[in-house]
């Protein structure tokens, strides 16, 4: 059956066909849809874990119990999961354990760029690199087989253009498989030093065996065409090479760890000139150079994505003729949606002149003008640790230090940061932006709102009680749409000694089922003071003499602007449809 599937859908399908019974992970672009699709398949369970480390640990337990299990995360997720990953390689598996890692070269939706192929030699885990959805499915199935045959966790490494491109796939049937029976095996599964020393060397043995097996069976592919140029490539770069250099011979590396040394030597011996085309790090180039194989180091960008045109230019093509460009265009940065509760909180935050340690989610957009209320964003969960660190060394210019963190991010790795501040007797104001959902990655459930990936209701964590259990005396809850009330609470809390938590609670505007009627500006009353413009709401603009205007087709009636207008110039209007729905 031929289907048009994204790389993520194909990985989910591959895991299902391979008989995986559990999928677990944490959302992160571009990996998220993998588990969402897996969850929809028959006879499986899929779970969002609070973070990637927990996800991999759950997978480890499932593997120990003899089941096949898929884990999915974005590239930075592996940093969080690296602790169990490295030691899992020592242990190996019982049921096959496959980790989908989706990299984001060019940082479409990420705080950094990492080339996950590097985990191969670092953690000594095999890496398979599909070049399209058909391979994403095939390689995932193969990864489960390799995992069990060589007793090792396997990474399937994708990138944005694999995960989020659709191409044709021939889908197969699910292999029904028996659970591998459990046996007590402490030397393999209990990684204390005496056992780990043995497993460390055993890991080298398993990788070496895999390398020998791979010479015959790895999904590498050699395509001989004109042998005056031979290109070694992998992943999405393969497609760009085919497009840009249709006559070139190609060694397409399908398993990038262990590096196919013999295949590289054989290929290099058959072509006149070798070049290497890879996206992101100099991974293949470094390994190929170490083999002593000479290649032409064509100029590829050190960061960002490749494209057929970039590859063509690296080989001397002039590129396509272009039309003239149209200059002077305004940028279009992403923005918070109309009615976003984060906006109200940031507007109120402007009044306390705080240094704001930030975190990752939709609310990171509060760093952009006109709100400009964020001074740092490092990694998930960092806001609270950074707030504490800045306070411990004596603070910053005597200003209050406030951290802002989303609900999903708090559950991911903010709770430990908060425990740390409480434990060390630190101070500061932690604002938890509880919009009842993991919004940035497309509205996944999380432990704070209590809906699972299977759509079940579960216990939602009571943040206020959790904070009191940590001994935090001041825990207050605000409605961020009520900007005045929020401002008052903020002013009180930044003056307080010690640690306090403010839970800013209102649902994401995109999950509120009914929109309110839109508002309109009464021009007679508007003094063109600009207060509402400072909200940065996409529904509000100014006319030539500075008066505010509201686009009724964009306004969702959150009334934040009504609250910041000192002149009562913003009034309810009829619904958008009554006004004729002109857009």
């Amino acid at each position, binding site marked *: 059956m031929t289907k048009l599937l994204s790389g993520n859908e194909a990985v989910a399908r591959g895991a299902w066909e391979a008989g995986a019974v559990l999928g677990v992970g944490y959302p992160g*672009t571009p990996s998220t849809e993998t588990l969402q699709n897996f969850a929809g398949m028959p006879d499986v369970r899929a779970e969002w874990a609070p973070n990637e480390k927990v996800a991999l640990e759950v997978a480890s337990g499932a593997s120990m119990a003899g089941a096949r299990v898929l884990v999915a995360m974005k590239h930075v997720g592996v940093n969080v999961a690296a602790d169990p990953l490295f030691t899992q390689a020592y242990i190996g598996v019982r049921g096959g354990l496959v980790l989908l890692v989706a990299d984001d070269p060019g940082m479409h939706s990420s705080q950094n760029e990492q080339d996950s192929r590097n985990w191969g030699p670092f953690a000594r885990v095999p890496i398979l690199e599909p070049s399209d959805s058909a391979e994403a499915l095939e390689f995932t199935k193969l990864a489960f087989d390799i995992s069990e045959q060589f007793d090792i966790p396997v990474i399937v490494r994708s990138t944005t253009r694999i995960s989020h*491109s659709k191409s044709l796939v021939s889908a197969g049937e699910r292999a029904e498989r028996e659970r591998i029976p459990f046996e007590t095996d402490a030397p393999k599964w209990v990684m204390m030093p005496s056992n780990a020393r043995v497993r460390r060397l055993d890991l080298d043995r398993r990788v070496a065996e895999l390398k020998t097996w791979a010479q015959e069976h790895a999904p590498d592919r050699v395509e001989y065409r004109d042998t005056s140029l031979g290109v070694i490539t992998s992943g999405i770069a393969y497609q760009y090479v085919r497009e840009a250099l249709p006559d070139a011979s190609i060694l397409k590396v399908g398993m990038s760890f262990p590096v196919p040394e013999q295949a590289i030597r054989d290929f290099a011996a058959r072509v006149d000139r070798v070049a290497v085309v890879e996206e992101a790090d100099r991974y293949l180039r470094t390994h190929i150079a170490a083999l002593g194989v000479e290649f032409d180091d064509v100029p590829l960008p050190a960061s960002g994505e490749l494209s*057929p045109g970039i590859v063509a230019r690296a080989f001397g093509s002039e590129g*396509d003729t*272009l039309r003239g460009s149209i200059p002077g265009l305004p940028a*279009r940065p992403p923005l918070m949606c109309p009615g976003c509760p984060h906006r109200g909180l940031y507007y109120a935050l402007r009044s306390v002149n705080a240094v704001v340690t930030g975190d990752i989610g939709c609310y990171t957009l509060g760093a952009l003008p006109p709100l400009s209320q964020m001074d740092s964003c490092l990694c998930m969960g960092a806001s609270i640790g950074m707030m504490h660190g800045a306070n411990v060394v004596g603070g910053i210019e005597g200003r209050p230090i406030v951290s802002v963190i989303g609900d999903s991010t708090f559950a991911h790795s903010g709770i430990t940061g908060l425990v740390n501040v409480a434990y060390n007797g630190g101070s500061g104001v932690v604002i938890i932006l509880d919009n009842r959902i993991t919004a940035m990655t497309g509205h996944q459930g999380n432990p704070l709102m209590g809906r699972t990936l299977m759509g079940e209701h579960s216990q939602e964590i009571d943040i206020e009680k959790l904070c009191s259990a940590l001994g935090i005396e001041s825990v207050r809850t605000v409605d961020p749409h009520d900007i005045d009330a929020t401002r008052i609470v903020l002013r009180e809390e930044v003056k307080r000694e010690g640690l306090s938590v403010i839970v800013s609670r209102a649902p994401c505007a995109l999950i509120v089922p009914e929109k309110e009627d839109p508002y309109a500006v009464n021009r007679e009353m508007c003094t063109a003071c600009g207060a509402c413009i400072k909200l*940065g709401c*996409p529904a509000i603009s100014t006319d030539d003499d500075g008066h505010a205007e509201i686009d009724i087709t964009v306004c969702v009636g959150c009334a934040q602007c009504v609250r910041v207008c000192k002149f009562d110039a913003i009034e309810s209007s009829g619904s958008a449809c009554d006004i004729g729905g002109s857009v």
Partner: protein
Amino acid sequence: MKPVTVMLAGVGGQGTILAADVLAKVATASGFDVKLSEVHGMAQRGGSVDTVVRYGDEVFSPITDPGAADHLVCFELIEAARRVQWVKPGGRLLVNTRTIEPLPVLIGAAKTPDDLEARLAEEGAIFLDAEALACEAGSPKSANVVLLGALSVGLEFSEELWQETIGARVPSKTIDVNLRAFELGRRACVEGECMA
């Protein structure tokens, strides 16, 4: 057949992904090799988004380069201007006349040039007021399907196949509206009402 490259450019939330998906399904049903590439995540929050569909006997890259698209369908005027270089000289440039001012303009920190339509007209743009036609079809939200209708005039697929695919892809309550939207977009271009 050499691959045909269609790029759809717009603003997060305008429905470019659904439109691209319908086109990809139509091309698949016609027996072509197909690739579709889209970007999710941060940009979807009101940022610039573009989606690429390529079909032909054998398609390698899911993405394209400036100067390489055969058709560029722009859901918004500023994005049309931003992406105009992506359509090859002689390619088809279809532009929705709607403007969505980006935040820097709304807050007065930047300005949108006021000659964008004229500049795009010099590039041979075909203009369409997709929202007006969508409202006529029954919902302003069907503007993306109006644009598909307009695009369909320049592609080789039958009207029936488009209708079937749209019917299968959109929520069942909205099938009628979307089929009307497709029809209006298609007719606007067939009858030459698109202002060239």
